[in-house]
């Protein structure tokens, strides 16, 4: 008889026992590893959105899992409340100013919650209190005042994203400001604003209306002027026609018996008079030229005198202002005995 047939009950007994012992050992190990009977401390945090969060998500501290998310609910104020627990072995890490940060992979490979311990020492936070999220108002206050220990992320992409994020926020704020400014400008351009720019633009608009009215009036006046010019042009055209006419004005003037010939046959009397007048004008022009040269040569001196005078007046003004403003001067200005200047002008010189 085969061994296993002969000892079938023993073989089956061992077969069953090994299986049950293994299962029992696994369950005991699980209970120990997963802390089935350990005390957990519950806290809550508030996030702007539940995106990236899930019940059962691990909460890590320096790479160790210290707790898990138990529940996620949406409040009436559209705030997402995340309930979680911290294991009793890590409860002394949860001190005041501790933070909770949602870390997500930038390439969509999940994420997790990270606990940042508050600076300094202190008793653990009481159970049921708020541990603020990093991106909440309370969290930002703690971060800006450096009240929490926030080590740099080990992931280089996450670090880059963390650096880019504030930059993008600044750019976003700038764009919002630009948008707001453009909105104001648009409102001002529409003339619906009572600010300085709006008032100016309204004034510009009224000015343009005034200009338009002026242009209309000018156009009326220019029409009259153009009509006069047209008359002049017609006269000029008639004169030009006379000039072109061989029997017209010019031949009559140049004719041997015309007015010009008669006017010029006076034995050079007119010519001599004109020549004399020209000589006199030439002499006068020479004198004017000399005078202009003198004035030109003395102009820098005049300019210097004027500049000195201006500076002296300015200094005098400053002195007067200083005197009038100086509270130490109580007894006025000391009278001075006038001294005869040793300098005399050329006009006073005795010849």
């Amino acid at each position, binding site marked *: 008889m085969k061994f296993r047939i002969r000892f079938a009950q023993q*073989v*089956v007994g061992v077969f069953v026992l090994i*299986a049950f012992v*293994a299962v029992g050992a696994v369950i005991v*190990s699980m209970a120990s590893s*997963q802390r089935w009977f350990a005390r957990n401390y519950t806290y809550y945090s508030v996030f702007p959105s539940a995106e990236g969060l899930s019940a059962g998500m691990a909460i890590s501290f320096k790479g160790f*899992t210290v707790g898990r998310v138990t529940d996620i609910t949406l409040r009436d104020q559209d705030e997402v409340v995340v309930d979680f627990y911290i294991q009793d072995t890590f409860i002394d890490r949860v001190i005041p100013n501790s933070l909770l940060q949602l870390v997500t992979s930038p390439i969509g*490979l999940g994420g997790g919650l990270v606990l940042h311990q508050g600076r300094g020492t202190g008793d653990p936070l009481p159970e049921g209190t708020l541990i603020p999220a990093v991106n909440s108002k309370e969290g930002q206050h703690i971060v800006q005042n450096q009240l929490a220990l926030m080590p740099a992320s080990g*992931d280089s992409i996450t670090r880059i994203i963390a650096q880019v994020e504030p930059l993008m926020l600044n750019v976003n704020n700038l764009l919002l400001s630009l948008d707001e400014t453009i909105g104001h400008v648009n409102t001002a351009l529409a003339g619906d604003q009572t600010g300085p720019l709006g008032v100016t633009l309204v004034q510009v608009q009224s000015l343009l209306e005034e200009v338009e009215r002026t242009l209309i009036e000018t156009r009326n006046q220019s029409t009259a002027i153009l009509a006069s010019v047209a008359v002049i042009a017609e006269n000029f055209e008639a004169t030009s026609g006379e000039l072109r006419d061989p029997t017209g004005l010019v031949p009559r003037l140049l004719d041997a018996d015309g007015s010009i010939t008669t006017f010029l046959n006076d034995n050079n009397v007119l010519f001599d008079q004109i020549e004399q007048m020209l000589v006199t004008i030439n002499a006068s022009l020479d004198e004017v030229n000399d005078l202009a040269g003198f004035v030109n040569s003395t102009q820098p001196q005049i300019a210097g005198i004027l500049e000195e005078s201006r500076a002296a007046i300015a200094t005098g003004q400053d002195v007067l202002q200083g005197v009038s403003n100086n509270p130490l001067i109580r007894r006025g200005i000391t009278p001075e005995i006038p001294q005869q200047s040793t300098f005399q002008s050329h006009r006073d010189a005795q010849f």
Partner: protein
Amino acid sequence: MLNFVERTGKNTITSVQNFFYAMGYFYRILRDSLFYLRHKQSRRVLTFQILFTGIEALPVIAILSVGLGAIIIIQGLTVLPQFGQGQLVYTILITVITRELGPILTAFIVAARSGTAISTELGNMVVSHEIEAYVADGIDPISYLVVPRFLGVTFSLVLLNLYFNIFGLLGSFVITALVTEIFLQDYLFNLLNAISLADILVSVVKSAVAGMVISVVATYYGFKVEQSSTEVPVMAIKSVGRSFVLIIITNAVITVVYYLTI
């Protein structure tokens, strides 16, 4: 046209009758199983059934689970850390070995080995009029022949599934340690954190249900043999095919229920 309608109606009535007959058959097995272990002689039959169905299938189960587990660990440790998700290897290992593939692969092996054996055995007993002899002697064939096989296969399948997990989770570690650097303490710590009691429970339920399906279907088709010995292999093949289909359906239903309740 009339023949087609008549044939459809006849097939439908037959299917409904067979379904209710199978349900009544299953109910009889369950009812008799409750009082089965009171008889000392019955325990010995059950012991042999576990021996043949469970222990003799253990080498195949062990090789399959160790190979599968080692492949998952090696592939997981090679590929997943490249995406920063090295820890997922333990979740995948639990999902595949414990929750999904473990029960279904074990059930397929038992259905192929023991299901056909049970159908063939009972079919041959019908052909050789042994069943009639039991009835003539006042012995209920369901109590004496079906119930020990039902309990034996179900119990064996649960145990084999546990062994599949032991070999798949621990044996595969040994194989993996031969080809790559992996630390036992780290491996066990992560594995115990990844597994949950629900995983074990679902695995046990799946294998128990699969064991019931295999034994009921195998005995049902075994008794369906009527006269000729040529019917025996036909019924054996039918029992295996029907077992596979029902195993997949029940497995899927339990999985859906599990995911709906967690």
